[in-house]
């Protein structure tokens, strides 16, 4: 329908256009003005109807005012402009030809109603929107609070469920919060911990840096620290912890709280202490062991100026026999009793007794007066052993050998001191036992040298430090050189030339005698061949023979016969060029098994000489049984012949032995011939061969060569 420009619709449209032009600039609608005008059109129509209604109802205009609010005309300026517009144009465009006064009055009443309707709607909308935004804010806070609560609940679960103790305190040290684990550790209830101050937990065992670290942390100079710390529990026991304290800062980085994490290490610590005890004490006797003793000894030796130490090293005499005869259980009980008695000897401060192992005990005294104290200690120890020890109803007499070392701190190491004590104890034992000896540097030095030689022996053989000297064996009948005794020497890099008495016993002891003996045999046989090549088999007495000493160890070595045969064959030397010298003492009581190899060698043609004859328990009846062909008289028999006139008793003995030997078809060699008179005497007595300084001292093989030449030409 197209409205007549001047018809009622056209006039209504003009009113609406004026109204919308007036109000649109102050609305906040997102509609276009044309769309906005469409919204106003029904409102204008309603006003027009109300103006001209037969029965006037001004109240109905309230809905028009409210509709303005619904069209988002919330700025009161929109109402002002609306009322201006209605006042000016409603009667003009919509009043038709009604009574003007009545229409103006009605218009005015409608405006009042519109204003009231607008105000009420705006008020309701405002309240509703305020309500909505407040609700939204509240819900949003609820959401955040819920998230916070969830986060706190998670945190609390971690806090409460943690196996380690967690505590939070402020920077003044006031405890704010602790978890269950921490309470359990302390054996406390939360109320009794709250309000406590961290500084109250000073403990005598706190490490020196503990509280300095604490101060640095609460002053923000340190982010965290870690210490081992002890706490007193209410029940008087001590709680040991691994404690880590961290500084908590707020969002701006300002220090706010301290957070302590602690782990209960009490059990572990006790276990460590027990392990430490077990590691430092002897399980049998409960005495400190070697480890702890060395710690204490080293402490005493590092004690500083003016401090001294005294050490007693005790080894029971004949303990092995007790162990072997009464059994280890009895031996152990004996050791326990000895330990108890020793323990009672060392009660003064600075004194201790330890068991080094087996039946070896040590007692240590420290301090400036140890020189006197150690003597008294040794006396008490020897005294403590005097009373017999009763084991299984037997009274056992226990004796011990005691080595005493005393001296100032700071001069020797613990190992050196203990070695000296050990050496000294062995001196006491060698001297018969049941006594104490005081350490003596010279004796120590000898023992140390002996030890040094023993350990140097194997390399000495490898390095070729041994060499052989030869001492001629001279036939007393014609003065001709018949052979030589091979005598081994050691050219020691430090000690110079050492004779066999210095190292053969050591070699015997370590078993090195077997390879050493084999080397001597090889070397000597090689030398014998060299002589033979030089001189041929000239002379009535045949080729030069070589005498080699055989130690008891070699004698019982299973490879003796084979080695000897191999060496002879390899050198191409006949067995009869070799004479093996065996000491009488090595053969005393020898059974057939031991004699068998000697017999084999004798059968092959090797001569066997009985060395040092007459010094031991010479079993003359046994002589027949032995596969020997030569007796070597010990030098002690010839010593009596050095003077003139000779000792008649010695002469008789030698004469007797010679007669005996010859009757058994044994040749006799004498050692230690130093004078011509002596030599003559022995020749008269019937001795066959001699050796000694009178003829030649032991020397290099060339010397023998010269002698033999002299002999051959002379």
């Amino acid at each position: 329908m197209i409205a007549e420009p001047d018809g009622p619709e056209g006039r209504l449209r003009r009113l609406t256009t004026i109204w919308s032009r007036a109000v649109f600039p102050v609305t906040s609608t997102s509609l276009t003005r044309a769309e906005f005008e469409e919204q106003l059109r029904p409102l204008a129509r309603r006003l027009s109807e109300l103006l001209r209604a037969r029965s006037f109802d001004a109240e109905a205009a309230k809905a028009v005012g409210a509709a303005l609010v619904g069209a988002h005309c919330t700025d009161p300026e929109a109402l002002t402009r609306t009322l201006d517009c209605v006042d000016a144009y409603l009667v003009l465009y919509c009043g038709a030809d009604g009574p003007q006064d009545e229409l103006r009055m009605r218009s005015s009443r409608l405006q009042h109603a519109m204003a009231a309707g607008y105000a009420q709607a705006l008020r309701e909308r405002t309240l509703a929107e305020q309500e909505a935004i407040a609700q939204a804010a509240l819900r949003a806070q609820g959401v955040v609070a819920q998230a916070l609560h969830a986060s706190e609940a998670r945190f609390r679960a971690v806090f409460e469920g943690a196996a380690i103790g967690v505590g939070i305190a402020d920077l003044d040290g006031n405890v704010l919060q602790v978890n269950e684990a921490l309470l359990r550790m302390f054996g406390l209830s939360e109320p009794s911990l709250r309000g406590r101050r961290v500084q109250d937990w000073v403990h005598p065992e706190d490490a020196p840096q503990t509280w300095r670290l604490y101060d640095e942390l609460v002053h923000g100079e340190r982010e965290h620290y870690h210490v081992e710390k002890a706490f007193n529990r209410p029940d008087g026991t001590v709680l040991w912890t691994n404690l880590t304290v961290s500084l908590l800062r707020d969002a701006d980085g300002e220090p706010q709280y301290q957070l302590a994490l602690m782990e209960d290490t009490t059990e572990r610590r006790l276990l460590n202490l027990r392990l430490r005890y077990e590691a430092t004490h002897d399980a049998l006797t409960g005495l400190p062991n070697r480890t702890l003793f060395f710690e204490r000894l080293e402490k005493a030796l590092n004690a500083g100026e003016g401090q001294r130490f005294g050490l007693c090293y005790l080894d029971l005499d004949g303990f092995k026999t007790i162990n072997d005869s009464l059994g280890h259980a009895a031996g152990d009980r004996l050791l326990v009793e000895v330990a108890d008695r020793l323990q009672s000897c060392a009660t003064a401060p600075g004194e201790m007794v330890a068991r080094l192992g087996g039946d070896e005990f040590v007692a240590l005294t420290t301090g400036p007066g140890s020189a006197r104290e150690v003597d008294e200690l040794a006396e008490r120890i020897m005294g403590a052993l005097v009373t017999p020890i009763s084991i299984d109803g037997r009274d056992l007499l226990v004796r011990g050998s005691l080595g005493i070392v005393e001296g100032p701190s700071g001069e020797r190491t613990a190992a050196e001191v203990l070695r000296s004590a050990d050496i000294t104890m062995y001196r006491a034992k060698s001297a018969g036992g049941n006594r104490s000896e005081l350490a003596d540097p010279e004796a120590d030095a000898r023992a140390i040298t002996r030890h040094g030689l023993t350990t140097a022996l194997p390399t000495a053989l490898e390095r070729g430090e041994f060499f052989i000297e030869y001492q001629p064996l001279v036939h007393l009948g014609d003065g001709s050189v018949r052979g030589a005794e091979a005598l081994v020497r050691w050219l020691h890099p430090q000690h110079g030339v050492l004779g066999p008495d210095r190292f053969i016993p050591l070699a015997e002891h370590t078993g090195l005698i077997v390879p050493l003996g084999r080397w001597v045999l090889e070397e000597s046989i090689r030398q014998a061949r060299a002589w033979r090549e030089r001189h041929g088999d000239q002379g009535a007495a045949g080729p030069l023979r070589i005498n080699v000493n055989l130690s008891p160890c070699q004698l019982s070595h299973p490879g003796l016969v084979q080695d000897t045969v191999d060496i002879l064959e390899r050198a191409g030397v006949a067995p009869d060029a070799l004479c093996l010298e065996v000491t009488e003492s090595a053969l005393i009581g020898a059974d057939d098994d031991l004699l068998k190899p000697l017999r084999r060698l004798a059968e092959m043609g090797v001569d066997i000489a009985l060395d040092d004859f007459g010094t031991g328990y010479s079993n003359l009846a046994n002589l027949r049984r032995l596969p020997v062909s030569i007796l070597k008289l010990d030098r002690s028999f010839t010593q009596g012949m050095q003077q003139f006139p000779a000792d008649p008793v010695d002469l008789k003995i030698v004469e007797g032995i010679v007669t005996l030997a010859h009757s058994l078809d044994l040749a006799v060699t004498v050692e230690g011939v130093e004078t011509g008179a002596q030599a003559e005497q022995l020749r008269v007595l019937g001795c066959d061969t001699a050796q000694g300084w009178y003829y030649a001292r032991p020397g290099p093989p060339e010397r023998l060569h010269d002698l033999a030449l002299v002999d051959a030409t002379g």
Partner: protein
Amino acid sequence: MERPAWAPRSIDISVPSVSRIYDYYLGGSHNFEVDREAARKAMEFLPGLPKIMQANRAFMRRAVRFAAGEGITQFLDIGSGIPTFGNVHEVAQAAVPGARVVYVDHDPVAVTHSQAVLAGNDDADVVAADLRKPHEILASPQLERLIDLNRPVALLLVAILHFVEDADDPYGAVAELRKALAPGSLLILTHASYEGIPLPAERAEGAVDVYKDIRNPLIMRSRDEIARFFEGYDMVEPGLVQMPHWRPDSEPEDEDPFAFSGFAGVGRTA
């Protein structure tokens, strides 16, 4: 137990919110005195601020209708604020029944208010997330429920990018969103600028300072800088223009002079 220092803080409604200030400009009462105080202060410098907001709403309304006309039925409105009236879902669902709308805002109060407004509307929902973290928006269950990213989406960034500082890489965020959109999607964008404001820039700076004071700095960008947000989009006619000039329904000459502040535009992904 006291609240631990490291726990998140609660909402503080004594701090002004840009959403509620916006509502106040639009004549709403979803605001508190702190918001109104800040708004009045800003209006002392720029009295036409309500008109700028109104122009934003009017542009958005035209652009949503345009998108609906292009056949788009999915809308993602980031920085939706407090939807006083004339919202995307009203406009879109009026144009295309069943159109789906997801609102996004980082203001928790705006989000809960939107939840209340949208109660019972199965085709619209709201996500509490931040434009600065686009992956959180794209991965949200609401978006997954309502929007099929294999089909075109109208992405609305109306009056929001001027609250993202360069340090927070707004261009990167816009690019990341673009990459998630199917071809034929639209970017509907407005942005504040000193260009077009019918007052000397010094006056406008006063209003900018107000936003700085409430810790929601307003970043005024030049037309060129705003145009860069459309990288990867083909501009829809008439391009990036002052709001009243974008496909107007009525004569732009009738508009309030403040309506010409800032720029608006729509781009389409290839």
